[in-house]
Every structure is written in structure tokens, then in C-alpha cells.
């Protein structure tokens, strides 16, 4: 257990430079987004009001006011979220392949540690999951700050509504996905995320075990896992059977747990018995 925790810590440290950059990029870009977005709206509103010689109230009636949803939809705001997501998905692959390739073959050391191969597998998964949670935590912390900054900037007369943090999240599909507001949603977002990661890890293990044949096996495995998880949806789509939403949720949760468990078991089994250094 201690070795597992040390491994998680080690894996996070290895990615820390890039990870901290991601956090900083998110923070800076979103703050800049709030300021620039607000400023450009205010400038435009001011120009129009001067040109057409109308009051703030008339401007709002004619052109509409501003609220945080407009900021949250900007590239400044969503760009870093997308960047972080892409970086972490990329890292799912890199976290394994970097140990095999390059001048220094760290995989020798890693697989010769006096610890189970399962803990090596899980430590990498845990590291990525913790990093995802860290990014979400940052977003949860800075969102109210950004909101407050925005509200202090915009004159009340031009503001549509002063939104609460939770309503900002609800109004924005991206934020709604990454910051779940209910437990069910949390299970959906992160459960599916974890499952997808374990499937990818296992596909990588297939490739590392059987090389070119392994890529095919990995794809087949991914297909089977996806089909298994989505089976109830297919069944409903074929209109041969109908599930109540509660039932569907229950069945898919169970299937998700089974698929994840199966992937982890198979992946760590491959790592233990079939992988070639």
C-alpha cells in the first residue's frame, strides 16, 4: 500500500511541470477572458449609446444586456478546459509509452519494483484521475471569483441578471459536464470517464503485449467493452424492450462497474503475464 501511494506521488511529480502549466493557463486565460469579454462588451455598448444617443435602459431593451453565460461561452474561457482535457487524454497514452521509449527505459525499473503489477497499473490510473479532479477543483474555486470580478466590473443597469455560480454551471454545457451538480451526474461524468480510461489502459496493455496484433486486439476489446456498456441503449433503440429511466440508470451503472472491473483485471493481468519490456 505504501509503495502504491509512493508510486502515485511519483507519477504526479513526473507530470507536475506540464500539469502546473495547465493550471496556470486555465487561471490566466479565464481571468483574461472575463476582463477582455467584459471590456469589449462595455466599449461596444458605450459606442452605440453615444452614437444613437440612447440610455443604458434603452440599450438593454434594444440590444440586450450581458451576463456571465456570454463570458463562459468564450474561447478564452472554454479553450483552456478543452486544452486540459486533450492534454490529459494524451497523457493516458504518454504515461505508459514514455516508460518504454527514449534513451532511458524506465519500464525496467518500474516492472522490477517489489510491488504488484496491479499497483503499478492503478498508480498510473490514480495519478491521472487525481489530476483531473485537481483541474475541476481549480475550476470550482476560480469560478465564483471570476463571477465576482465580472459583477464588480459591469454596471448593474447593463447586467441581465446577477447569476449564482450554480446557475452559471447549469447554463453552460461544458461546465455542466465537468462540474456535476447532482450525485447522479457525478457518477455519469466521472464513472464513464474512469471506465473509458481503464478501457484505454487495457488497450495499451494489449498493444504492449502483442504489438501490431495487440492493436487489433485492443480495438476489439474496446468495441466489446463499449457494446457491453451500451447494450441496454441498443436494446431500447431496437424497441424490443423498454426500460424506465431508473432501471436504465441502474443497469448501466452495474454494467459500467463490470466493464471497469474487467478492464482493470485484464489490463493488470496483461501487465503481469504478457507484457514484454
Amino acid at each position, binding site marked *: 500500500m505504501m509503495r502504491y501511494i509512493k508510486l502515485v506521488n511519483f507519477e504526479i511529480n*513526473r507530470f507536475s511541470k506540464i500539469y502546473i502549466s495547465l493550471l496556470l493557463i486555465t487561471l490566466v486565460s479565464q481571468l483574461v477572458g472575463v476582463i477582455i469579454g467584459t471590456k469589449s462588451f462595455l466599449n461596444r455598448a458605450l459606442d452605440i449609446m453615444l452614437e444613437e444617443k440612447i440610455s443604458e435602459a434603452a440599450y438593454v431593451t434594444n440590444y440586450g444586456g450581458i451576463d456571465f453565460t456570454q463570458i463562459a461561452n468564450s474561447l478564452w474561457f472554454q479553450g483552456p478546459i478543452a486544452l486540459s482535457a486533450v492534454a490529459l487524454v494524451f497523457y493516458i497514452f504518454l504515461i505508459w509509452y514514455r516508460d518504454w521509449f527514449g*534513451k*532511458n527505459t524506465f519500464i*525496467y*525499473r518500474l*516492472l522490477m*519494483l517489489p510491488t504488484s503489477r496491479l499497483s503499478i497499473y492503478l498508480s498510473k490510473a490514480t495519478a491521472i484521475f487525481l489530476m483531473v479532479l485537481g483541474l475541476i477543483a481549480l475550476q470550482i474555486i476560480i469560478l465564483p471569483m471570476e463571477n465576482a470580478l465580472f459583477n464588480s466590473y459591469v454596471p448593474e443597469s447593463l447586467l441581465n441578471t446577477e447569476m449564482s455560480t450554480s446557475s452559471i454551471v447549469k447554463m453552460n454545457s461544458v461546465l455542466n459536464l465537468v462540474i456535476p451538480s447532482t450525485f447522479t451526474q457525478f457518477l455519469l461524468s466521472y464513472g464513464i470517464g474512469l471506465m473509458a480510461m481503464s478501457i484505454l489502459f487495457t488497450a495499451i496493455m494489449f498493444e504492449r503485449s502483442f504489438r501490431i496484433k495487440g492493436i487489433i486486439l485492443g480495438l476489439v476489446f474496446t468495441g466489446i467493452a463499449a457494446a457491453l456498456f451500451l447494450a441496454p441503449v441498443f436494446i431500447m433503440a431496437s424497441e424490443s424492450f423498454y426500460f424506465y429511466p431508473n432501471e436504465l440508470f441502474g443497469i448501466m451503472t452495474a454494467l459500467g462497474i463490470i466493464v471497469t472491473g474487467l478492464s482493470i483485471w485484464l489490463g493488470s493481468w496483461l501487465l503481469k503475464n*504478457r507484457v514484454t519490456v
Partner: protein
Amino acid sequence: MIEVKQISKKYGRKTILDGVSFTANKGEVTCLIGINGVGKTTTLKAIMGLTPYKGEILIDDQKMTNNSYEKITFIPDAPTMLPSMTVKQAMVFMEDFYTSWNPQRANQLMGFFKLKEETPISELSKGNTAKLNLMLGLSLDVDYVLMDEPFSGIDMFSREQIADVFASHLIEDRGVIITTHEIGDIEHLIDKVILLDNGKVLKEFNTEEMREDEGKSVVDVMREVYQS
């Protein structure tokens, strides 16, 4: 004792090992020799559980488990630590993960090899990388040490130093298996030789017995076996 029993291995259609069997005793140096590069490293990887194989390998009558890595270690001919680490960080890593890490021996070897703790691994020369590998591997209090081509591509003075360490630090009641394609520096240190070719064991003999009974050096036997 390490017992390798009838192990076979294929990469695709290519046969790397074809029913290789031998034993390596504790307290002895066993040398796997093969001129044609095939099979030596794979054998070591198989023993270490780093590649799948057919057949059976037992270490002191038991199969390899996670805890075996506290008892047996492998020193590959490539660096096994991250290039971003310093020598010191690599030592800390080993100490963190292995209960068999022996810091006194590590310091002794650091001094002997004149390695500096603050040097980044990415800046080590080929010779110093080999020394670092050796230092990290030999500082574990293990029963068996496996080394892959410890002398290849290394300058003469580093080779001499490594050969010195062989006699003074390496053997000490341990079982040692080393692979090599040229026997040179360590011929007189070896107890047992296993000649491999095309994935098979061609000949296996005890060096002192060979000298005593037939007056032949290891190189003499290699010449006979590989040139016939």
C-alpha cells in the same frame, strides 16, 4: 539456485530461445555467451519476469513473485532511471522502494566509481551510466544479480574498474549471471560458462574443470564450438 528448464520464446516467426535449460548456483558466476547476439538478453528478461516464455524458471525452488525483486536484480545495459533525475534522486528512489537497499554499500560504490550525487543522469557518459546501473543494482542486498553485457561499449579504464568491483563487491556469496559476447576482462572470474547459439545451449562447462582436465581456456572452447 536459479533453474531454467526448457524455456522457449518466439517473436513472431523468429525463434529466440528453443528449449534452453541450465542452472546457476548461488556463490558462483555463470556466464551466458553467444556471439550472434540472440537469446542472451531474452533469457535474463525471462528469468526476471520481464517477458513471457514457455517452460519453467525457478528461483530457490520457487516461481517469481513481486517479492522476488528484493532477492534478485537485473542490471540491463541501458539506463533505467529517468534522465531528468540526478544520481542522488535515483538513489532515493531505490531506497524508497526496496527494503533490501544498502546505503553503506551505495556510498562505498559511489566513492569507488567516483560518481557525483548532483550529476543529472542525462549528462552521464556511457561508461558512467554503466557504473550508475551497477551501483544501483549492487547496492541491493540480493541473492542473485543478473547483468546484461556489462562491458560493451565502455572505455578500457571503466571496464577495469567494473572488473575490480566484480571480485570485491559482486560475488560475495551471491549468484551472478552475466551475458557477454566477448569474454576478455572477466574470464578468470567465471565459474561456469553456457554457450548459446541459435536459441540452444551448445555447451555448458565449469571453467576450472576445463582448465584442469583439458588445459583449455574459455576462448579455446568458444573457438572449437563456434567455428565447427
